[in-house]
């Protein structure tokens, strides 16, 4: 048997796992095949599409074909494994440095961040474009302008970054340890010293600090980017010490109980409920342990109070701590010493630090019998006698040891692996992982084979390579006529794709390009845009929250965009899952974002952008701020300028057009049916993994209605049939492609992945 047939045998074995009871295969599309090679190629393409949908923000045809080739040469799992290894070896595309690079670029173009005057009552702006002065410049004071830079960095990295798997895992983690930008102080810019014009202003010694508060969120996000393949305990530790989390869950400045004032319980609760162990004591397979009263809560209100005592004493981490006079003011920096830091304000750039005199000194009785003794206990081992005793002040080190011990205990808790693994699988692969899938991955979380717990690289690999990540799509080869039939396992193996992932897949598949341009005196040059007006080939997109109710950094609360056990009204609620699932209910978290508004705004959005491009303009504001110091409110800003910069993103449908319009003749001729078929197979294969549904139905008049794939094909065929002699113009062909693209972006088979 040739090597090639070995790999086909492997592939087919992979697809032909045993079906559990209650599972039925749903026939999706079928493809005409001529040779055995066609079967190999189509199989590998489907597998590559399926895998890259789980592991990236979207794959191009080139990506899919390249991985499919590797799969044919090495075997599916070996190629996927090698792909993961190559991805994990890539350097991380960090978001915080990119955000600040974008700001600097804008600054150097003179459009932003440029001002004279130091007091908020005396803002005046001058432009330095081409060295000129006196022209109205642009004010970045508006919060909208500041928040967009973190959006720019995120979209650019996930759309253009080579480290796709890292970005995808980071996005998953960012939805587990979730923060949102709508919090006090997260969007402030900070200036220092006497502000002058010129590039020095960006450096931090004068003017905008190099690390303003509003840059903090990307620094927080980079915890996930940098540690996407690190240890989960590391992630939880860095999150716990990050100033963003300290402010977001209000434990920065938390002080030991004194005078009837108690430590804030916010972080103590959420670090357990959301970041480590969840509400219920779990088995490794994700099911809840029970006793006579039902499910067993992992913690109660008393436990929260104990943990709240652990998370005391942390404050912003810059400056130096002087025990003699050090004190922790919840509203002030660590020691109040801003000017000592040469890099400007770094409230969110360095970890929080411990003010040991504010850290609780008593014993702490934590979960699983873990006891942190009182500082009065010199033996180091807890006794009953130190229950309410308080000893001397902690040192910075002993206080930090307590936090470390508490976090160690939570990650070591038996519920942590299944709780976190379930969420990672939901973000990467499917909404309802089976008990068996859970148990397999949880085993890797508990021990990666080298006695390391929570090794995210190993966990991610186990999630992506598990048979359950592949088995939902199966292929059957049928002879005479030779057909290649794709079937899916359906409900329990599927997941509604997050809205932002739907869009990133669209952008990446259609080989989009993006250009960031600037205007001259409010007017953009016509194409071709002169080099001097192009800041870069950058995906500097802004928030899509108003369209999708989802965009990076727009989580409304620590509970993310959706909860893990959300059930949309309707069939999902009434569905009775097979016994292989963890629970007796089916969950579909992403549907929490779908309502009568977002459904329509999303479909309208795709109708709009399928025109081939989208332009985002950035309205910036200039001039004296005469009416109020409340510059967050645009209504208070006078002299609103025309936009100064814009991102033009262009989607490329040239390949799709070429499928309809090749050199064999005009569209509309006898060869058109084959060309329409080619377009359909292309869109089905690469965007839907060959699963585009084709189940017919009956309408309310009793008329038969074709399935989605046939319906779309009929519509295109009918349109092509209207061809005038000589065929269609290029613009008309583009409109046909656009209609097909719109239909695919609305198709349940595209939106729901398996």
């Amino acid at each position, binding site marked *: 048997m040739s090597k090639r047939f070995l790999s086909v045998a492997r592939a087919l074995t992979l697809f032909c796992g045993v079906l559990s009871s209650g599972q039925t295969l749903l026939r999706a599309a079928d493809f005409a095949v001529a040779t055995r090679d066609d079967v190999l190629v189509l199989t590998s393409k489907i597998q590559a599409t399926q895998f890259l949908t789980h592991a990236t923000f979207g794959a191009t045809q080139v990506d899919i074909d390249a991985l499919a080739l590797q799969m044919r040469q090495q075997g599916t799992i070996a190629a996927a494994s090698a792909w993961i290894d190559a991805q994990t070896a890539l350097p991380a595309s960090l978001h915080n440095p990119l955000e600040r690079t974008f700001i600097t670029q804008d600054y150097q173009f003179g459009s932003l961040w440029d001002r004279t005057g130091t007091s908020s009552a005396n803002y005046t702006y001058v432009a330095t474009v081409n060295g000129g002065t006196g022209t109205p410049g642009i004010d970045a004071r508006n919060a909208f302008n500041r928040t967009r830079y973190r959006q720019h960095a995120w979209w650019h990295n996930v759309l253009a970054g080579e480290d796709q798997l890292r970005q995808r895992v980071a996005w998953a983690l960012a939805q587990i340890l979730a923060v949102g930008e709508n919090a006090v102080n997260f969007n402030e810019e900070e200036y220092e010293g006497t502000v002058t014009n010129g590039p020095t202003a960006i450096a931090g010694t004068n003017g905008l600090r190099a690390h303003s508060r509003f840059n903090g969120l990307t620094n927080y996000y980079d915890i996930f980017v940098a540690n996407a393949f690190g240890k989960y305990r590391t992630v939880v530790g860095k999150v716990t010490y990050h100033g963003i989390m300290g402010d977001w869950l209000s434990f920065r*400045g938390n002080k030991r109980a004194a005078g009837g004032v108690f430590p804030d319980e916010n972080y103590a609760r959420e670090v357990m409920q959301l970041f480590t162990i969840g*509400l219920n004591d779990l088995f490794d397979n994700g099911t809840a342990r029970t006793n006579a009263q039902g499910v067993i809560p992992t913690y109660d209100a008393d436990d929260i109070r104990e943990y709240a005592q652990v998370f005391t004493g942390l404050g912003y981490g810059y400056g130096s701590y002087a025990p003699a006079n050090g004190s922790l003011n919840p509203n002030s920096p660590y020691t109040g010493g801003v000017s000592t830091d040469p890099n400007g304000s770094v409230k969110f750039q360095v970890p929080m630090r411990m003010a040991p005199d504010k850290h609780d000194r008593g014993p702490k009785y934590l979960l699983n019998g873990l006891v942190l003794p009182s500082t009065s206990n010199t033996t180091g081992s807890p006794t009953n006698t130190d229950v309410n005793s308080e000893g001397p002040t902690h040192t910075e080190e002993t206080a930090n040891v307590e936090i470390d011990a508490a976090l160690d205990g939570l990650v070591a808790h038996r519920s942590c692996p299944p709780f976190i693994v379930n969420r990672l699988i939901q973000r990467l692969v499917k909404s309802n992982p089976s008990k068996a899938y859970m148990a397999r991955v949880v085993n890797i979380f508990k021990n990666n084979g080298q006695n390391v717990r929570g090794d995210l690289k190993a966990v991610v690999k186990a999630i992506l390579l598990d048979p359950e990540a592949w088995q939902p799509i199966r292929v059957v080869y049928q002879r005479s006529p030779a057909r290649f039939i794709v079937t899916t396992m359906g409900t329990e193996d599927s997941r509604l794709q997050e809205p932002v992932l739907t869009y990133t897949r669209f952008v990446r598949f259609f080989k989009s390009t993006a250009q960031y341009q600037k205007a001259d005196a409010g007017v953009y040059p016509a194409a071709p845009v002169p080099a001097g007006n192009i800041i870069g080939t950058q995906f500097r997109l802004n928030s899509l929250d108003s369209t999708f109710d989802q965009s990076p950094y727009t989580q*409304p609360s620590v509970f993310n965009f959706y909860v893990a056990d959300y059930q949309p*009204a309707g069939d999902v*609620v*009434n569905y009775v899952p097979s016994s292989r699932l963890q629970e007796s209910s089916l969950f579909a978290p992403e549907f929490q974002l779908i309502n009568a508004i977002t459904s329509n705004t999303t*479909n309208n959005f795709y109708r709009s952008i399928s025109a081939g491009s989208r332009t985002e303009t950035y309205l910036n504001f200039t001039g004296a701020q005469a009416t109020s110091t409340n510059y967050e409110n645009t209504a208070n800003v006078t002299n609103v300028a025309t936009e100064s910069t814009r991102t033009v993103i262009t989607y490329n449908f040239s390949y799709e057009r070429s499928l309809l319009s090749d050199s064999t003749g005009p569209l509309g001729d006898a060869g058109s049916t084959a060309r329409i078929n080619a377009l359909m197979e292309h869109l089905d294969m690469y965007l839907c993994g060959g699963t585009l*549904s084709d*189940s017919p139905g009956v309408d309310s008049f009793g008329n038969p209605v074709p399935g989605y794939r046939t319906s779309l094909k009929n519509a295109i065929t009918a349109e092509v049939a209207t061809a005038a002699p000589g065929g269609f113009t290029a613009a008309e062909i583009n409109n046909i492609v656009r209609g097909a693209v719109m239909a695919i972006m*609305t198709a349940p088979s595209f939106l729901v992945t398996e």
Partner: protein
Amino acid sequence: MSRSNSQANLEARRNLLKLGTCGAMTNATFLSTLMHLKMTSAVMADGPSIAPTGGYKALVCLFFNGAIDSFNVLTPFGTTQGDARYSEYASTRSGAALKRSLAWDGAWTGTDYGYLNPIVDSSAAGGTGRTFGLHPRFTYLKEMYDAGHATMVANCGSLVVPLANNNDYNNNFKVKPIGLFSHPDLQKHWQTAVPTSRNQVKGWGGKMMDLFTDPALAASQSNVYSAISTAGQSLLLTGNRINPYSISNVTTGVPNGGAVLSAGFTAPTDPQNAPYGNLPGNAYDRIYTKVQRDFASQTYTDILEKTSRDSSVGARDAAAAFQTAFLGTNGDLPPAPSVQFPTTGLGTSLNAVARAISIASNPSAAAPLKQDRQIFLVQVGGWDHHASVIANQDNMIPLIDNGLKAFYDFLISKNMLDKVTLFSISDFGRTFSFNGSGTDHGWGGNPIVMGGAVNATAGNNRIWGTYPNIVLNTSGTGIDRGRGVLIPQTSSDLYHADICRWFGMPANRLNEVLPNIGNFPYQGGSKPIGFLNYT
């Protein structure tokens, strides 16, 4: 079924309902039109429909998402022992306490956060005769209270059975709500009224609207207008058939997010017979429209794909129908309320609600937007004030107060104050004790009710429920679970029950939407609590 057919059926069925011949016949007719299993089970589970009487009524639920510190919304104010003493509040709350008055406390140092607004819990109205403090920024709410059009229910929260004290709490035979003090759990409990479960997918509001709407129109348009959310998906408003319609809080135009293919899509009449060549627009809209016409009738075996399709088609058709009805026969927008609403989140949400109420309650409104009963959800988040509770509430409560005032003025201007009741819910109350900056997760809280139906007269109003003792007592006979987490002494079920009764729910059928209501003795004689007027 075409829309005109369903419209005719609606009217026919309404008439049947009004004649009291609902029951089996309605169900039989409905069963014949069933499209999927869910509705079968739903109709079997629902009790008989309830014919609304007494004209239009609407409920507006104001959801303080994140757990508002309502012990700073309604505070002690008295000066004598046992009189909900302000001094005890001040010492227990310490840094989270508001100032009573300039004379009592002196001036604020730094920012002036104002002084409490005293309101009288009038003994003539059945209250205790004590004086309470309303938050300093609730100045309009104080006016509404004094006018007898707003009130609060003290120490109200989620319970399964009454818990008189810590001894009861520690009694394992007395069931407690699941996930106490956790935001998502308690948010669910307030909306589902089933606090023993995390898996509830229906809210008491939606279940109630199931009974008040025509079951035959479940799958079409009628429920689009009966339960409306300005906050996206809403558990409270989800019933067996009722699925809340989302509107946006735009202050001009149609608040529906735009129908799909606003330029090209036309609602299907007879999809298969429509001449394809006559479809409007460009090739892309023709292709897309054709695909959309087949879309609704296709078979999807994958439940998630089917749900995706149903959501998409439902939103498309509802937006088109809403737009048609909203614009009226002449394509005119309904007149903007004469009252100027603030442009805040709550202001714009209530503006959209006000416009929907204007249409639905208009006797000459175009069907099917006209409704006899409506329930709305508006939401304001960001109340989880573990930090800086004084400063944060000082910023946020004026937005609530101004929004409520505009809505109140709107209802008066439309002579509808008696027809609409606004009530607040929130995850839970917050700790009575202070954490150094804010307050933490508690249990009982003090929800707000506003409307002409409030059981009070001008100058003679009262606080309902039992305002807790501020001297915290964690002993077996106390209600403090520690740190001022207070066991509610009035169940949220009783609170909801008064609201449901006013809306038209018969007393003997409350358990259909509030399954645990039978566990709680009534506090108001024949009424669950008694804070609303109804017979």
